[in-house]
């Protein structure tokens, strides 16, 4: 990657911190994202009502239910998987007023799935407070076959749709919630750069 080179579409995850001007807080967390929520709850207690939706993450051992329960005994909902949680979120959003701030902590995939849901309710992702947790693995959109390969950890990854070897760019699509992947050996088939894990 070039020095001093930054793609503007690349998302920034600034970390969870209370928005002091708010009438309510809606926190969505997944797996180890709970740690970010616990940190925020330790910072200070908000004066406004807090609703927390927490989903376990498949294949992840971290389980913060009890710690969360101790910090926040009210309005807390734990789900076994994200699908159930997203269903609950969609049922909850129509009853939220302007002034409710949305926080999300979890994997890239999770953050942008939430951003997509709240966007349908008129909330721009710029107004969602985000914290990336657990892994920096990327969702990669194949610009050739349009398939999205999830959880790519390397600079070059194989597309699940067309098996092309894709170079994972920093260019990010908020609509797709994925980074762009371009065939890396189009000009010299089979000639691949060294594959390294750079998104652990």
């Amino acid at each position, binding site marked *: 990657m070039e020095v001093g080179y930054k793609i503007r579409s690349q998302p920034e995850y600034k970390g969870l911190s209370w928005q002091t*001007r*708010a*009438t309510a807080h809606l926190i969505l967390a997944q797996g180890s994202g709970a740690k970010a929520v616990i940190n925020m709850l330790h910072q200070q207690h908000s004066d406004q009502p807090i609703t927390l939706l927490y989903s376990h993450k498949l294949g992840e051992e971290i389980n913060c239910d009890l710690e969360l329960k101790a910090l926040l005994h009210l309005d807390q909902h734990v789900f076994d998987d994200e699908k159930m949680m997203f269903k609950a979120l969609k049922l909850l959003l*129509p009853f939220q007023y*302007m002034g409710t701030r949305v926080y999300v902590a979890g994997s890239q995939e999770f953050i942008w799935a939430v951003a997509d849901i709240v966007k349908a*309710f008129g909330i721009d992702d710029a107004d969602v407070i985000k914290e990336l947790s657990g892994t920096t693995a990327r969702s990669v959109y194949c610009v050739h076959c349009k398939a999205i390969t999830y959880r790519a950890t390397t600079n070059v990854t194989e597309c699940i749709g067309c098996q092309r070897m894709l170079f994972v760019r920093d260019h990010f699509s908020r609509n797709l919630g994925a980074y762009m992947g371009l065939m890396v050996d189009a000009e010299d088939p089979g000639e691949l750069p060294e594959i390294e894990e750079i998104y652990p």
Partner: protein
Amino acid sequence: MSMLDVKVASVEQVTPLIKHFTLIKEDGSDFPAFSGGSHIVVSLNIGGRVHRNPYSLMGAPSEPGAYHISVRKQEQSRGGSVFMHEVVDVGTTLQITYPVNLFSLAKLGRKHILIAGGIGITPFMSQIADLKRMGASYELHYAFRSPEHGAFADQLSAECGHQFHAYTDSNGTRIDLVALLSTQPLGTHVYVCGPSTMVAATLDTARHLGWPENHIHSEQFLAPPVGAPFTIELARSKIKVQVPAEMSMLEAIEAAGVDADFLCRGGACGRCELQVLESEGELLHHDHFLTDAEKASCKKIMPCVSRARCDRLVLDI
């Protein structure tokens, strides 16, 4: 700046203080299309001095044959609105700029709350046409002094039905901003245009309730304030220009024959921004565009509304 030559087709006294002017192109052709919330700048030659005042376009953007503006007579001002009221009549020719929109609707908003005070109703007249065309959910909250001052209130009531809410000072009805803004669904945008106290109260209330900045919209054109005369130096033009008490810096620069950029002439858009090369004394910033930090830095100034109390002020133009 290229201008449009127009003729006044009709004038209607809407309230004791507000006149509605219908403008048509001098050559009879259609006007350029515009979007709801746009404004134009009207040039008025008053005793050899050119005044340029911004006015919101009111008509439906889908009717390109005429532009509609309304002007409130401001007795305490520098004469532009009084000239519009007392001199401009059917058949008068005027020059206007192409429309510019600094107060556009957030098209992806799920609901729109429009808050107007007095003459601040004008940009909403064209926005409502857009909202109705889009089939968008909206509410119009319109406050005015007393029934005879409620310009277009009957027309709006008929057009907007139960989405229209009127408040009159004389009846003691006021907009309860906290109640209004604390019960809006997610994805709502608020727009306010009116007196500065109303704009400030709306912005404060929305921010305090946690509305994100990009859901809060306001428009307020300032008239250039009158102040003590001062002198400016134009570095690139290599001339000194006197700014009289009743003229803005921008007008003085134009009167000196120097071509300066502008769009709104009301401290809102930032287009006329000039770099301050040197200053000795105080810059009197009046605009809504520069941040407080920028104002404090004394490096930039908006010549359309701001003034100075300076022994020396050198501008990069």
